């Protein structure tokens, strides 16, 4: 048997000693009698009772001491489960940077876990079949914030399996997986975290070439100022999409559909108007744009200054197709403005955003790992959330003893 709050036992013992002391040293009130000639007794304070060091009313004393000790025992929260049992949670990275096949060493580690949670941009509990099969396709980027949060939410289900929880994270620990909320969520875990680094899986860069555009196309001037490396995973389509473009998108490429003539696209037309700026992925272009169509539905990747989408992204296979409804004019130097160049580069970024597989710094990993002991279940679940069946019985016994003491007290006082 172990106690979650053993301090209450010592407090109850001390209080029991106080009760015994008070019982022995209490000033006993004299027996009351009717005495017709009481008026002739010298008038002295009636409370001046004789002190008694004799242990009278032993039954009453025993009941009081027992009630105090049982109350202390209940507050100490005894546990009948084996002490020092540690439950284990493993967070398995299933993001785009994680290998799709779990290594044998990691597999044996996952077998010993009480709970396995897979995570990328979301988290889900995994069975053995789940972690041995390839992950979902396409694989979104990972988030350690989501992983830690899912571990915190899984702890209450494991509180009866041990008095401490070991958290293990098997991940690539790439920079892209660490966001602004990660540090705060890490601080919520009151113990150390065991890190199991995984080698990030990064697609090798493909040979890249500039797309061939017509010389009269104003965007051709823009592309000349963009590094060809930006086209390693992206292709630009100024006309209509072809089957080859769709196939490339399914294969994982980023197809940027930026029509030169919007009328031929079949996109929804809107009342022509002018708008004076567009922004996407941190790049903004301030100019007068004559807006006439609305891009197809999808995840907005660029917006007009009035909030309407200027470019959307739709997942196709392992890649995506970005539809850009931003007209480019050939007037002036608009096509070679740095803002337009940056905006164009942001549209050429890989699907789901740019991949940053750089490993977190050692200092950052040390902070994630922490140096404290394993997290106690009581701190993770909250002290008040735990109710032990023994407590109810002990508190019931205390209540019964107190009622018995109330019943016996007048009898002993009269005797």
């Amino acid at each position, binding site marked *: 048997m172990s106690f979650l709050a053993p301090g209450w036992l010592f407090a109850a013992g001390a209080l029991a000693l106080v009760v015994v002391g008070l019982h022995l040293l209490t000033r006993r009130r*004299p027996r*009351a009698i*009717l*005495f*017709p000639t009481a008026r002739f007794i010298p008038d002295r304070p*009636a409370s001046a009772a004789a002190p008694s060091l004799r242990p009278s009313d032993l039954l009453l004393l025993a009941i009081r001491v027992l009630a105090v000790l049982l109350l202390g025992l209940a507050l100490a929260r005894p546990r009948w489960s084996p002490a020092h049992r540690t439950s284990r949670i493993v967070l398995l990275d299933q993001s785009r940077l994680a290998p799709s096949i779990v290594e044998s060493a990691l597999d044996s580690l996952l077998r010993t876990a009480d709970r396995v949670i897979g995570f990328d941009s979301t988290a889900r509990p995994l069975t053995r079949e789940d972690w041995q099969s390839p992950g979902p396709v396409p694989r979104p980027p990972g988030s350690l914030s989501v992983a830690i949060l899912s571990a915190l939410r899984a702890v209450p289900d494991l509180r009866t399996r041990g008095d401490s929880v070991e958290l293990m994270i098997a991940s690539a620990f790439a920079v892209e997986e660490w966001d602004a909320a990660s540090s705060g969520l890490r601080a919520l875990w009151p113990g150390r975290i065991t890190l199991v680094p995984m080698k990030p899986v990064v697609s090798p860069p493909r040979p890249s070439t500039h797309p061939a555009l017509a010389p009269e196309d104003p965007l051709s001037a823009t592309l000349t100022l963009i590094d060809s490396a930006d086209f390693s995973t992206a292709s630009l389509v100024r006309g209509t999409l072809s089957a080859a473009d769709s196939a490339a998108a399914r294969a994982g490429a980023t197809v940027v559909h930026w029509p030169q003539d919007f009328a031929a696209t079949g996109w929804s037309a809107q009342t022509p108007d002018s708008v004076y700026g567009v922004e996407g992925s941190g790049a903004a272009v301030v100019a007068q744009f004559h807006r006439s169509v609305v891009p197809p539905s999808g995840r907005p990747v660029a917006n007009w200054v009035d909030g309407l989408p200027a470019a959307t992204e739709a997942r196709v296979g392992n890649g995506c197709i970005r539809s850009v409804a931003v007209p480019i004019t050939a007037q002036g130097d608009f096509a070679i403005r740095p803002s337009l160049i940056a905006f164009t580069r942001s549209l050429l970024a890989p699907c789901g955003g740019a991949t940053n597989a750089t490993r977190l710094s050692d200092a950052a990993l040390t902070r994630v790992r922490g140096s404290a002991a394993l997290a106690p279940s009581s701190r993770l679940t909250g002290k008040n959330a735990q109710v032990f069946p023994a407590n109810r019985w002990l508190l019931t016994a205390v209540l019964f003893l107190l009622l018995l003491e109330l019943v016996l007290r007048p009898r002993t006082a009269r005797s």
Partner: protein
Amino acid sequence: MIVPGDYGSLLDALAGVSWPARKPFGSGVAGTHPSRLRGMTAEFTEYRPYRQGDDPRRLDWKLLARTDRAYLRITDDHATRSTLVLLDASASMAFPAPSSGKWRQACRIALGLASVARADGDPVGLMIPRDNSEIWLRPSSRRGVLAEMTHAIAAVNPEGSPSLARGIPGIRKGWRLAIISDFLGEENELLRESRQLIVNGIEVFALHVMAREEIEPAATTRLATDPEHPEIRRVLHEGSAADYVTAFAGWRASLADRWRRSGAEYTEVIADEDTASVIRRVTHGISSTVAG
């Protein structure tokens, strides 16, 4: 509750005891007590020469015929004396619990004195003041008056704090009054009223009933509460017992002195004392106090 059957042995023990009046008194009803009146009874005392104004019917006509001298025949008259027992049934008389020894002794004395007076041919009556009423048996010479008194007493439980002095004004001249009480309530008022009765020729007997526990309390520590005045609460212990005994004895001595100086017969009675002895002491005019 007093059981009437308890009094059988007492009444047997009091057979032959009489309760004569202390002084002659005037009364129109013939009885056993000497009267101040000189009447026409057969008990001859002396002759006295006729004086102007004497009732001619009292002349001894035969002596006048024989000696030609006018003399009055003087005889002693005897009269009855109504006896009223004033019994204190206040809460303090229920001491000590649970035997109520003071109340039992007071009841036995009341019945004993009544039986003695009744045996002398005197009318006897009973008054027991209560808080809001009173038990009043007018002095009577009826045969069953003692039984009525017995049943009246048996129905009473001592409680409350009734005023004994309240029953005093109903007493008539020439009566005899026996007050049986512990005198722990309004004793000054009762003494004042009794003094007025004594001046009017009424014999007053004050029987002070007390328990032995009141005279010599045990040395154990107790919180004593006056049953008639609950606000009086004192701690009686070994240290205060001596002071209590002294104070109580002083009060008793003062009380006895005041009653006797007012002309009453004052007798102290212990609750566990033999009742017949007490009654003989009272009827023979032996006033007594308890040492202590």
